[in-house]
């Protein structure tokens, strides 16, 4: 019995199963089917009868050869090509053995054991090849699977990365938007702060205006009155001249002269007041100029006083001054220092008028503005300005807050709370000086400014 038919049958069955020949290669399917049946048929014949053994053997070999040939040649059987490698050795050996048997039977018989052995080896080779190929295939499949898995993982990771980047971009955009909003808010706050500072200035200017109006009124009155007097005197003088009383006319002329000097004096006084008011309203140039601090203090004291009187008719307080005449001009931005003085003096007047409301018998509201030159061997020359009042004083619990912006003890609407903080800024940052307060609650307070003369 030859194994060729068995091999053919097995191969065809394998092909059918492995390659799903019906599906993929329908045209070969019929041919293979034919081959299969033929093989089965011839096998049966072989088993049943002992005749035609050699012919059948040769037919089997040829059929197998043909099968291997088509397996090797056609592209569609690529997957099964390993079968060719597996089976060809066996087929060749079988073929050679049959040829030997045909040519020289004796030789065949003598070498029978050898030929059997070789056939067996070829057979084992075939099986071996098949096993190895299967293993290779399996590993290939595994590797492919792994590759696919890895690819999928990579895809997942890429997707996650992409998502992360989207998230990060979103967050960054959010943060950027928040930053922009904060920047806008910051700008708005800065603008609001500038406005508040400006309105504080305008408020203090407004307070000044009433005082200044009064201050101007007086000199203007003198200008008017004295010039009217001079009109009368001139008429009198003309009469005396007509009457020939020249000495009397001369006396009158002297009086007229004196009056003219007074007119001139008061006119200049009004002019100076207007100029100082303009300077106060103009934004500070920031430039330091030599200034008479005593005159500045005196001017703002009077301005404050009249301003407060103009606002509140019941307001009344005494004020004293004590100026050190040895102080020459010091280098300051006089609008700023003037504003500071005004603020301190206004506060002092406010404090004493508040205390006056309590109607303590014998209470005389008084404020005192004094200047002194400070000279010692340790420090460069400085000037000390004190604004003292005998008002209510500063309570201990607010003492550390009074220089803070927006802090005020006045009822709503009466004070912005910026006066002392601006003053503090002007003195310390603007002029490198000091601003401190000494107070006794219920008895009064004294604000002390120390300024370097340079």
């Amino acid at each position, binding site marked *: 019995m030859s194994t060729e038919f068995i091999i053919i049958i097995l191969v065809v069955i394998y092909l059918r199963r492995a390659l799903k020949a019906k599906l993929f290669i329908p045209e070969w399917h019929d041919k293979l089917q034919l081959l299969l049946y033929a093989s089965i048929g011839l096998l049966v014949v072989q088993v049943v009868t002992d005749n035609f053994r050699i012919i059948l053997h040769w037919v089997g070999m040829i059929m197998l050869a043909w099968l291997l040939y088509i397996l090797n040649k056609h592209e569609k059987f690529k997957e099964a090509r390993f079968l060719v490698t597996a089976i060809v050795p066996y087929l060749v050996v079988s073929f050679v053995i049959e040829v030997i048997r045909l040519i020289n039977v004796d030789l065949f018989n003598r070498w029978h054991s050898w030929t059997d052995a070789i056939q067996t080896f070829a057979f084992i080779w075939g099986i071996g090849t098949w096993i190895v190929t299967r293993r290779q295939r399996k590993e290939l499949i595994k590797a492919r699977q792994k590759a696919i898995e890895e690819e999928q993982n990579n895809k997942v990771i890429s997707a996650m990365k992409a998502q992360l980047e989207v998230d990060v971009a979103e967050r960054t955009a959010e943060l950027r938007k928040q930053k922009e909003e904060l920047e806008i808010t910051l700008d708005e706050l800065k603008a609001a702060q500038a406005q508040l500072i400006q309105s504080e200035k305008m408020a203090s200017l407004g307070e000044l205006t009433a005082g200044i109006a009064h201050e101007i009124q*007086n000199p203007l009155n003198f200008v008017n009155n004295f010039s009217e*007097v001079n009109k009368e005197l001139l008429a009198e003088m003309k009469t005396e001249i007509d009457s020939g009383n020249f000495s009397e006319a001369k006396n009158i002329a002297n009086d007229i002269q004196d009056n003219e000097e007074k007119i001139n004096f008061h006119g200049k006084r009004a002019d100076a007041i207007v100029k100082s008011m303009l300077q106060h309203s103009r934004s500070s140039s920031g430039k330091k100029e030599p200034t008479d601090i005593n005159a500045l203090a005196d001017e703002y004291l009077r301005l404050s006083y009249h301003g407060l009187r103009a606002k509140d008719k019941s307001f009344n307080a005494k004020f004293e001054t004590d100026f050190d005449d040895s102080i020459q001009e010091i280098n300051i931005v006089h609008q700023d220092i003037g504003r500071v003085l005004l603020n301190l003096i206004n506060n002092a007047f406010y404090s004493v008028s508040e205390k006056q409301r309590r109607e303590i018998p014998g209470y005389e509201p008084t404020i005192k503005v004094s200047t002194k030159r400070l000279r010692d061997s340790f420090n460069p020359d400085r000037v000390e300005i004190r604004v003292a009042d005998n008002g209510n004083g500063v309570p201990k619990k607010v003492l550390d807050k009074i220089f803070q912006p927006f802090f005020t003890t006045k009822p709503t609407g009466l004070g912005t709370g910026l006066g002392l903080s601006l003053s503090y800024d002007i003195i310390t940052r603007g002029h490198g000086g000091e601003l401190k307060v000494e107070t006794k609650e219920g008895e009064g307070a004294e604000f002390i400014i120390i300024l370097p003369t340079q």
Partner: protein
Amino acid sequence: MKILVVDDERDIEVLFEQRFRREIKTGEIDFAFAYSGEQALDYLNQHVHEAVLILSDINMPGMSGLELLRHIKQKFSHPPPVVMMITAYGDAENYSQAMRLGADDFLTKPLDFSVLKEKLKEKVQ
């Protein structure tokens, strides 16, 4: 007639002396000057019954003109001197307060001296 003028501006003195030079020369009017409410009271205490008319500014440092007015009307009542207020602040509140305290008249600055002279003539009569 003795008139006491109370004002913290010193040039008021010169102004009055100029404006009333004729009256001063003829002896019709005699002026005294005080530069504060306190000084005015001192003067009145020292020269009792001399001044028949007092012209006072309202806003002065220290004692205001209205306070002075109150003091005068309380302490010097026989006979009470005539007190006229002169002030730059010619507003209703000042006016009503002055009147309430017994002021005899209320004049605003700048002083119209002709009007003042008229009023003085009336008061004398």
